Structure formats: C-alpha cells, structure tokens
C-alpha cells in the first residue's frame, strides 16, 4: 500500500495505489505509486519547490504536466548515467529513481543565491554582454555557469546502449490521441503502411483520463478497441514512448524512442533513434496551454489549469487545497468543476473576458463555484510558495485594473489559451500566422506532405477534423474569442514571460527600447524561448508583448524558428551503435592475420588497419622503424601494400579518357609500361597521384593513394557519366581483388628469382616502370617495377586469396638475404629520403603541380586535362607560392611536422611549414620536407622552425632528393 502523500486523493486516477514506488528526491526517500510521473509523485508528497530559476534562483514548482514544462527541471540518476535538465513531467516514476533539483545552495528549499533576486534590475536582459567586458567573458564564465545550475554531465563513459533504426511508411501519424488514432485507422483501412508514434507510454492522449465519451464510449474503451483493430493489421506499427523530434527534407522524420523506462540499469537500449521515410505526415500533436502573465506569476503553486486537471484525473493528485482558477478562455472551467467534484475547495474562477458561455455558467452555478468576470490576477503573495492571489477587475477597455481583491489560496490555476504544436509542420516548410482571436500561432497553408488533424489544426478548427463523430468529442479548443492574458498593470520586472530563463516583460521592454525589432533578435538578446523547454509556453506570449510594445499587430511580428529537436535527444541516440569499433568502417588486408602473428603494431591509415612496424622482442617502435628502414636500404624487405588503390579502365578509349585526368602526356604510353603522374581537380589542385599502366590498348590500370581509391573511382565515373559519356570505357575498381606485395632492396631480384617466375626479370628485360603479367607459384600475377622507397622494387599484384601463399614463399626465399617485413612507417621514412610526394601530407587544398616540381610537365602537355586552365590563373603563376623543398637539420634535433617556418630575410607571419619529417636511414640525421615560400629560390637558406610561437629548431633548405639523386638504386 502506498503511503499516501498529503495531496494524493483517496480515489481516482489511473495509478495503482497498491504498488508503492520508492524514489529519492534531493537525497530524501519518498514514495509514489505505480503509474506516476516524477512530477505527479512530487506533487502528491507536497513537494512545492522542485527547482530554482536560472538567473534569480527563485523557487519553482511543477507548472505543467507535459513536454512544455519550464520549471520542474531536475537531474536524474547521477554518476555515469547522469541526465541533467530532465523534465520531471516526462519522467515515469521507477523504483529507486534518484533525482535532484540540480540547483540551489545549500539546497533548493533554502537557496542563498536567492539574494540575486534582490538585484534583479541590475541583471536585466543582456547584462552579461554589458558588464563582463574586462578582462573578458571567459574570466567570469565558470562562476556564472556554476551559479546557473545546469546540472552535471555524466562522470564516466556512458554505460548504456543506443540504437539507430530505419523505417518506411506511407503515413506517419504523430500523436496517438483520438484524432491521431482516427486518422491512422482511416489510412490503414485504405491499405496504407502506417506508423503511429505517441510520446507518452500509452496511446489515447487525454481521452484516457478526461472522462469524455467518444462515439458513445468511455475514452479508454474507445482507444482500446481502436488499438485492437489496428494491431490486427500487419501494416500498422504503433510506437509509444516515442517522440517525433524533427522533420527533414524529402519526408524524413526523426523519432526518439525510449524503449524501457522501468529501470536505470536495463537490457534494452536507453534510447533508440529512428529515421522514418514517409510519404505523408499526419500531425495529431494537439496543443499546449499558454500561461497568463501577471506580477509574480512564477511562484510554486501556480500551474496550468489543464495540467491540474490531468494530475487530478490521471494521477489522483490535487494541485492544492484552496484553489483559485484564472482564465481567458472556456477550457479552464472544466478544471474548476472537476476539482470541486473531487472535494477540493475551489474558491472561484476569474475570467478576463466579460461574457461567458451560458452552459459553463450554469455548470459553475450548479457546483456553487463563484465566478469573477472581467477579472485577472494582478499579483501573488508568498515567499517559498503561493499563499494568496491579488485579483483585479478590468476596466471596460481592458487597459487598466480598477478594483483589487486578495484571495488566500495555495494553488492558482491559469489558462491563457491553447497553442497548436506545429513544430514539424513548420520544419516541413509550412508558414505560421498569429491569430488575434485565438492568441495562437496556427497553420496558414496546406502542405502536400503534411496534414493536420485535431487541435493541431487550431483553436477553432478542431471540429472539422477527419472523422466527425470521434473528433467532435475532442473539442476542448472550440469556443469564443479568448480574453487578454497579460495583466495591464503591475511591475513588469516581476511579470515572467519565460519562467525557465527568468525573462520578464521588463526584459522585453528593454529589448524594444534598445531597438531590437525582429522577434528573432529579441529572442537572442533576452534569451526568451532559448531554455530547455524551447519557448513552448513563452514564445507566443513574447510575440504578444513585443507587438503591444511596438504598437503593431502580433500577426505582423512573425515568429521564431521552430528548430528540431522537439524534445532533447541524447547524443548517444544520434550516434546509435556507431561507436567504438563501429565508429567508422575499417578494413584489413588479406595478410592481416600474418602481421598479427608476427607481432606487428597496427595503426589506422584512413580506413585501413595496417601494420605500422614489426618490433622484435624488447624493441621500441622507433627502433623497429629505423631497423626496417636500414634493412631495406642495405638488404631486402617485404611490404604489404594491398590498400594501394587499383582501378581498371577498359575500352578502346581507355588511354585517351585517362589522359584527360593526369598532368602527364599518356598518349605515348606503351603496353606493359607504367607512368607516374598527378591528378588535379578543376581548380588545378593536386588531389591524387599514382601510376597508369597499359596492358593492352583496351585495358589500362591506374593506381591511386590508399585513401583515395573510392574517391578517384567515383571521380572517373562522374566525369564519364556527366561530361564525357561518348568515351567508350568501363571503369571497374579492383583494389580488394589484387593484393600488392612490394619486394624491395638490392637483393630483391635474387629473392624473386628463387620463386622461378616465368619471365625474365633482369633489368634489361624488365626495366624500371615496366609491367609484366606472369605466373608465380603457378598463380597469375602482375608485377610492376615501380618504387616508392627509392630501391629496386618488384610490386607483385596477386589475387587476394593467393596473397598469403606468395608472401610466405617470399619470406622463405629471402631468409638467406636477411629479408624482413617492413611496415608503413618505414616506407614513409624511405620515401622521405627520396623526396617522394605523399598526397595529403605534403600537399594541401591549394597545392598545384608547380609547387611540387611538376610545373614543367603540366605546362608542356599540349592536350587538355582537368585543372589545366586553372594553372594559368594569376594566383597560380606567382613566384612566391609555397613550394615543396627538402629541409636538412642543422643540429641533431628532430623536426616536427606541422611546425611553422620563417625565412630570416622575410617578415611574413609564416613562410610555410614542415609537411613530413624523419631521419635519414643511413646518416641518421634529421630530415624533412616542407612547403616553403618561394622554396626553390631559397635553396641553401637557413630557416627558423617555430612551435607554439617560439623558435625551436633551424634547418637548411635543400633540393630533393636527400639520397641517390641519380636514381641508380631504383633503376638498377
């Protein structure tokens, strides 16, 4: 049996009083009932102060019962599962839930920072922009953020799991109330694939608890029958606990689902993010009740009237013991009558309108509830919570209050009209307009992809929704024109518009005085509507107040952008399962397991997980790299170059087609010969390099950098399909089909010959840049005489499923010559000595061929190629461009890649930077490559190398390469 809280009624509501649910709030153990939300449980226990306001630390209690809650913002769970800024109204009560107020010192009940409220006039809108100027804002930021009390971020890695799912449907119905279910059933009956999403844990919306009859049935029975009918249809998916958080282009709607709320330590994911692609979105999102604005309208005990009715009927909780109701429309009358029927002392209902529906007046009369027409709250009294309300009688023109009366009460239930929830409609491109008669932002046009039903259509239009019998019963929004909702008198500095961010009417006045006229600018200056509730109860009121201050119609003000997400979505849900090993696709070569067994150290190079080095027992990685580098220079090494991009281009126009992409002249390329060249983009910028090989006139093979294989293939395909469709070519990427094994070093030929290839591999028969198709171990292979290390190299390309057999055979054959496998880092060091270009490291988004010594080749090519025209732009003709040069260390200090370079005779901020660095394998001296201003004209000059603003090293500019300038080793 639940220990009943002082505000829990003995009966009523949909909670299970037999099943108590313990939870802690601010460290104190309390009890709610199964079916409660955190907010309803706190209200039942009499907890009036749930949180403190953002700026003035004023006490705040529960204000609403749903997504619009601006006050009851709490922190949940703590530790690694900490959830700051949670709305207590949306948190289902679970056993041993731990929540705290996330603000207040020493606690939320007695908060010393309330003193800030005494200097509220000083802390007006934009005060931080005007006061924290010296030395700068960041000096104050930690202190201010601490004061604001935004909660704590998780203290450790998130232990929960998240998922991302895709779904497709014909009709997505957002909102599982009566209107939504009606629309969904209509669409499903017509054969459409339908998805219904409901933010709350059960379908039916307010019909579950408001007691109205629908088609002659009680709401919950009607809903149960509708749900049963739809569950019988295979093509209907009903999703509860799921919020539609954003509408994106081409009918994409994002959903955030909370699958299981029963326990913080759960098996199922904490949140599931859905990407739904739909042909039609039906918005049955309903409307949100708006507040009234009067002095001190923020005290705990002041609550939206509709919320109080829901707490009564769904949770069996009374909002107070002496209740006053204030409204400007018909909807709050039902609250007053329901509370009265539940035995709660309803002092009366004041209405800012002078006339009221006769039927409502008759119902009040029957219930003996006093009625104050033309009356509006002017002020409230209380310190920790509400003790009394001061009501004022409006003059006939509604611009003044002439007679005030103070009424003792502990709850003031307010209703300022209803605003349709049209976030998704707006995000889909629909325009909203402010209607003076409803005081709401409503849809002004029809969209082909979005349909509105129920009260989302607007205050006066709900009765015209999809199916008459069902929806006519959902007519809480129908009624006469609303009355005023901003009290014309009272201290504007105490009239809250945005409860969460402590934005008052005075702040809006200040913004308008300072000439902010656009509502978007007012929003940013005052921060109205920028809190966690995103202005769901403040945006419309702010429009009305600003319009009044500017003496223009509210419809001329416009509105602020309704951006996604509609409710906060965890970053974990957006990332889904794509974290850790699944963060991004990773690739392994066919020899990966062999490398692992040999103790290779793996690094990620783009997508590829590659062997960086093979340290032996007790050897450091740096020593291993150095050893491998030396061995290749003096003996022979074996390298797994399988990630090298490989693209076959077939067809009679293959060579002519490729000639359009490379700066070298390919028309003279002979079969079984390879040519190295650069590929440019339209701007003339170098974006890839590789070899082009001709196997026959109809068959060319290009190699690309490892990270660019897919990009280059797509680049070739795009130009073929879009610009040059008449070329008779077919492009087929084959990177994974062919493993590449580089046998490198002065003994490479001897080692290869031991595998008895069926071709002559002597230098005369198979020279540098030659290509041969032959058999090794009976396997058909392609062997290239190309080198990225500067040594004699045979690049053996073999089908991936034969790679390990050939690799191991080469290891055995090279054993007597001391053959070692070498990793990517050793290769990069070897190529550095030769000054070979490494695209991406030695180039950036502005490097053109001349910058890397290829200017003459590009200029001499007569035929056109992509990027050629751009090379003649004045900027690309300048002599002071950054040029790639060698940098030889003048001392033994290593250079650092990325360090800035300054030429001593120039006074520029920077004259370039170090692009690659390492040590010479033979001399062990530090060497580097760098892009240096007019580098080639400054050969021999000494440069200063900077790090973090200080000169940390010097080097001398040299020509390239550092090693074997004649290329005798490579060509030998």
């Amino acid at each position: 049996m639940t220990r009943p809280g002082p505000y829990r009624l003995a009966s009523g509501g949909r909670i299970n009083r037999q099943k108590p649910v313990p939870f802690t709030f601010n460290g104190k153990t309390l009890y709610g009932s199964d079916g409660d939300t955190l907010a309803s449980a706190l209200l039942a226990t009499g907890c009036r102060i749930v949180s403190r306001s953002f700026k003035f630390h004023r006490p705040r209690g529960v204000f609403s019962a749903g997504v619009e809650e601006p006050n009851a913002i709490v922190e949940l769970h703590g530790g690694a599962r900490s959830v700051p800024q949670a709305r207590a109204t949306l948190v289902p009560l679970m056993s041993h839930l731990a929540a705290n107020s996330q603000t207040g010192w020493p606690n939320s009940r007695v908060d010393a920072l309330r003193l800030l409220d005494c200097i509220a006039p000083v802390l007006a809108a934009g005060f931080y922009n005007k006061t924290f100027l010296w030395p700068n804002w960041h000096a104050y930021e930690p202190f201010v953020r601490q004061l604001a009390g935004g909660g704590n971020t998780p203290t450790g890695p998130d232990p929960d799991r998240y998922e991302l799912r895709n779904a497709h449907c014909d009709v997505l119905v957002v909102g599982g109330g009566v209107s939504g279910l009606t629309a969904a059933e209509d669409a499903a009956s017509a054969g459409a694939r339908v998805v219904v999403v409901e933010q709350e844990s059960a379908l039916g919306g307010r019909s579950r608890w408001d007691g109205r009859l629908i088609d002659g049935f009680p709401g919950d029975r009607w809903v149960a029958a509708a749900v049963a009918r739809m569950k019988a249809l295979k093509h209907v998916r009903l999703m509860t606990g799921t919020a539609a958080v954003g509408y994106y282009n081409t009918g994409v709607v994002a959903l955030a689902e909370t699958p299981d709320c029963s326990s913080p330590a759960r098996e199922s994911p904490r949140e599931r993010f859905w990407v739904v692609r739909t042909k039609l979105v039906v918005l049955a999102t309903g409307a949100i009740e708006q507040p009234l604005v009067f002095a001190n309208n923020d005290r705990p005990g002041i609550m939206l009237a509709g919320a109080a009715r829901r707490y009564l009927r769904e949770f069996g909780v009374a909002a107070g013991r002496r209740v006053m109701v204030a409204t400007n429309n018909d909807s709050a009358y039902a609250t007053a009558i329901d509370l009265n029927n539940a035995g709660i002392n309803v002092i009366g209902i004041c209405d800012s309108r002078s006339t009221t529906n006769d039927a409502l007046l008759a119902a009040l009369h029957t219930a003996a509830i006093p009625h104050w027409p033309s009356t509006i709250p002017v002020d409230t009294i209380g310190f920790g919570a509400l003790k009394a309300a001061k009501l004022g009688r409006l003059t006939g023109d509604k611009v003044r209050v002439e007679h005030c009366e103070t009424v003792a009460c502990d709850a003031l239930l307010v209703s300022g009209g209803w605003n349709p929830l049209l976030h998704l409609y707006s995000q889909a491109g629909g325009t909203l307009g402010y209607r003076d008669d409803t005081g709401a932002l409503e849809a002004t046009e029809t969209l082909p992809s979005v349909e509105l039903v129920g009260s989302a259509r607007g205050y006066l239009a709900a009765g015209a929704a999809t199916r008459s019998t069902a929806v006519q019963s959902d007519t809480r929004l129908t009624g006469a024109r609303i009355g005023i909702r901003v009290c014309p008198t009272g201290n504007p500095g105490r009239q809250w518009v945005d409860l969460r961010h402590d934005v008052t009417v005075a702040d809006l006045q200040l913004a308008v005085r300072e000439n902010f006229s656009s509502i978007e600018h007012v929003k940013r200056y005052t921060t109205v509507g920028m809190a966690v509730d995103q202005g769901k109860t403040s945006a419309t009121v702010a429009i009305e107040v600003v319009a009044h201050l500017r003496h223009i119609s509210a419809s001329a003000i416009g509105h602020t952008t309704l951006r996604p997400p509609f409710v906060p979505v965890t970053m974990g849900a957006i990332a889904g399962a794509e974290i850790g090993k699944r963060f991004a696709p990773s690739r392994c070569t066919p020899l990966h397991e062999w490398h692992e067994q040999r103790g290779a150290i793996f690094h990620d190079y783009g997508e590829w997980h590659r062997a960086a080095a093979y340290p032996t027992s007790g050897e450091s990685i740096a020593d291993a790299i150095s050893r491998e580098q030396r061995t290749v220079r003096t003996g022979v090494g074996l390298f797994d170059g399988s990630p090298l991009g490989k693209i076959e281009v077939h067809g009679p126009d293959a060579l002519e087609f490729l000639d359009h992409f490379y700066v070298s002249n390919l028309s003279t390329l002979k079969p079984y010969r390879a040519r190295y060249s650069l590929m440019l983009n339209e701007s003339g910028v170098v974006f890839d390099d590789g070899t082009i090989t001709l196997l026959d006139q109809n068959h060319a093979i290009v190699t690309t950098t490892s990270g660019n294989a897919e990009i280059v293939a797509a680049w070739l395909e795009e130009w073929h399909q879009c610009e040059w469709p008449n070329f008779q070519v077919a492009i087929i990427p084959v990177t994974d089909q062919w493993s590449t094994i580089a046998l490198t070093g002065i003994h490479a030929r001897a080692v290869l010959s031991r595998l008895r290839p069926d071709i002559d591999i002597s230098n005369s028969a198979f020279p540098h840049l030659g290509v041969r198709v032959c058999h090794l171990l009976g396997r058909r292979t392609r062997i290239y005489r190309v080198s990225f290390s500067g040594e004699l190299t045979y690049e053996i390309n073999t089908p991936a499923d034969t790679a390990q057999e050939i690799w191991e055979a080469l290891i055995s054959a090279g054993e007597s010559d001391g053959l070692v496998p070498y990793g990517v880092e050793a290769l990069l060091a070897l190529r550095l000595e030769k000054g070979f270009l490494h695209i991406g490291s030695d180039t950036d988004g502005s490097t053109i061929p001349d910058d890397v010594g290829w200017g003459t080749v590009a200029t001499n090519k007569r035929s056109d190629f992509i990027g050629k025209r751009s090379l003649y732009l004045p900027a690309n003709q300048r002599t002071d461009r950054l040029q790639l040069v060698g940098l030889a260390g003048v001392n033994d200090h290593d250079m650092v890649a990325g360090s800035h370079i300054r030429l001593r005779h120039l006074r520029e901020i920077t004259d370039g930077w170090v692009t690659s660095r390492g040590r010479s394998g033979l001399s062990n001296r530090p060497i580097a490559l760098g892009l240096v201003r007019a580098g080639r004209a400054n050969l021999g000059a000494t440069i200063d190398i900077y790090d973090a603003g200080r000169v940390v090293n010097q080097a001398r500019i040299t020509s390239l390469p550092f090693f074997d300038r004649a290329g005798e080793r490579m060509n030998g």
Partner: protein
Amino acid sequence: MVEAIAKPRDISNDAKSTHVAVLPTRSVWRVRSWCTSKNWSATLASWQSATWPMEVGTAIGDATRVLCIGRLDWLVVCDSRVAEEQMSCLAPSVEGCLVAIADLSAGTASVKISGCNAREVLSVLCGLDLHPSSFRVGQCTRTRLAQLPVTIDCLSELSFDCYFSQSFEKYFLLSIEEVLAGFGYPTRSK
C-alpha cells in the same frame, strides 16, 4: 567472435528469426559494357539461355546469378568451377564486342542473411525501404549497409545475399552481430 570462425561459417543460427552465414568464396565477376543494350542481349544470349537482366535493380538466375547493378553493368555470381569455365568462354566472345570483364572473386565477400526477421535486421543498417512490397524477390540494389557500399540481392521473401569488399568483412560481421544482439537473437559460431 567473428575472428575465430573459419569459412564456411554461421554467426547466428536461429531458424525462427535470422540466419547469417558467410559463404565460401564465390566466383564474382563484374561485367560492364559501353555498347547499346540491344547488342548486349543478342551477344549474351549465346552464353546463357536466358536473356540477361537489362533493368537496373533486377537479378535472374539460380546457381548462376546475374545482377543488373547499373546501366550496362552486371555482377555475375556463381560457383567457382562453373564460373571459370563460363567466363573463359564468355571473355573471348564478347571482349571484342564492347565489354569489360573483371574477376572480383578474391576481393568480394558474400554473406547470406535469411529468416523471417532478415529484412528487419538489414533495415537496421540500411536506409532503403526493404519492405516486401518495395524490395521484391528478384530485385537487387547497391546501397549503404552499415556505412559500407554493399550490393543486396533479394533471393526470396526471406533470403538475401550481400556482396561487399572483402577487406570490410570483419567490420560487416561485427555490425551484423551487434544488430542480432540488439534483437536478442542468439549468435553461434560454427
């Protein structure tokens, strides 16, 4: 875990839900042409009794499966022995007829996903509409699955073959395993 499994292998075996199997290396050939489709049909008729699929996104065949994955662009998947014989016959007869043939057998991984929840498992990782009314038997598609470029062939209502670059195999299987675990399906190495 996937690393410990030798081919052929299952990473799940729950007949009531989803069955995922890495198939032994199949023979996979990419065939592309730059000629008109009419010539193609005539040329290829001599190789297979049935006409090759000319509509992008369709597939025909049983033991030898031909997927039309783009305009004048096919993937031919079959048993290795049969494929070598057939492709060697095909190559000389059509190479002069404006066609390119590339063997991708060693570079292509093939995974079969079947069972009554196969579509649901795939749709977790893929943004395409895989509902039976949209992705029918005999259709194929090139798409992104688990962030990878994958070709999916719908063999039957409950069976799909996925083809992707072999170097992604570990990552692909890791992704599938995680999805299966998310559905609560048992996974089993064999």
